[in-house]
């Protein structure tokens, strides 16, 4: 093989490498284009997902509006009664304001493990003996001033004299934990 043939062969090899390089470059460009198209598709899918989520949010907000409003309205009342002591003070405040005669009183904070939202309740029993109107006014005020109070039982009977009545009230005041993680009830 002479020098001219070797030079031609080198040129042919250079041509081949240029062709190979161009082809590789094109392949790489094509692969990147596919990747870009895939990324654009993912972006569109993501945008659709966002739109769907936004619509769901709107619907959820609309459906839960009343419940959320209800919770918001009650939040100040709940925040006012966070401990057994606060609940007891509120209750005794009503008793003092009305100046009724309390024969017996018993308060106890009970745990409620099955309910995270209301983990504790102040349970109490009051035996009152006073004038009919005073006692009923007191009860009305109790239920009005502590709207979360649940009167579980109330027995009214004749007092020591004709004007008096004797009332035994068992009640519960919930100590609500607004920060609790409430679980969806199992169906």
């Amino acid at each position, binding site marked *: 093989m002479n020098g001219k043939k070797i030079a031609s062969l080198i040129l042919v090899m*250079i041509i081949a490498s240029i062709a190979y390089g161009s082809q590789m470059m094109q392949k790489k460009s094509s692969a990147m*284009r596919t990747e870009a198209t895939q990324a*654009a598709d993912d972006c569109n899918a993501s945008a659709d997902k*966002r739109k769907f989520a936004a619509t769901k949010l709107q619907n959820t907000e609309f459906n839960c509006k009343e419940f959320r409003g209800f919770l918001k309205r009650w939040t100040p009342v709940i925040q006012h009664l966070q401990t057994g002591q606060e609940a007891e003070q509120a209750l005794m405040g009503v008793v003092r304001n009305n100046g009724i005669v309390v024969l017996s009183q018993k308060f106890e904070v009970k745990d409620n493990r099955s309910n995270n939202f209301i983990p504790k309740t102040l349970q109490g029993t009051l035996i009152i003996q006073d004038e009919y109107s005073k006692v*009923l006014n007191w009860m009305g005020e109790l239920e009005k001033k502590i709207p979360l109070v649940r009167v579980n039982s109330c027995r009214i009977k004749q007092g020591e004299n004709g004007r008096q009545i004797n009332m035994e009230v068992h009640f519960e005041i919930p100590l609500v934990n607004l920060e*609790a*993680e409430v679980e969806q009830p199992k169906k």
Partner: protein
Amino acid sequence: MSAYVTHDFKTPRPDGSRRLPRTFMLVPILFYLSLVAGSYLSINSYVNYRESCKSRDNSKAQTAEQDGATSHIEADIANINKEKLKAEKLVQWVEGTRMIQPISVAVTRAIPPEVSLGEMSFERSVDIPAQINLSVRINSGGMEDIGRIQTAVESLKYHAYNSQQSKTGDFLDYRTILVWQQN
């Protein structure tokens, strides 16, 4: 001068190579052509590559942004649902806190002065706290007094279910379950 030099100026080159075939003349032409075409294609591919790369990065950034926004929205939905669950629990409680005082006042007022009220009790149902078991004992009263009590209770939007009366001597015992009527 020798005869050899006079008759042939060309010096014999016994060591020189033979000419290449004519087809080999295409090799340099092909070389230049491939150089031009290769450069064009490479530049074109590179530009496309860069554009695609940019487009991919933009799309990825947008996807990340959209996903972030979606996660934020989903977190909002979860929070709203949690609030709803709390509100439902509160509603359940509040349903069982309906005031008893107006009922006791209404029952007392429904009984005429000549009839005396012996005892009155309200027991809230443990399973359904919205229901109240009312029991009243009246002395020297009759069925018309029971009717008055029922009317008084119904005026407060309560419905009396499963009413029972029993008379023992002068006493008339009346028991019923009061259920709140929403409408």
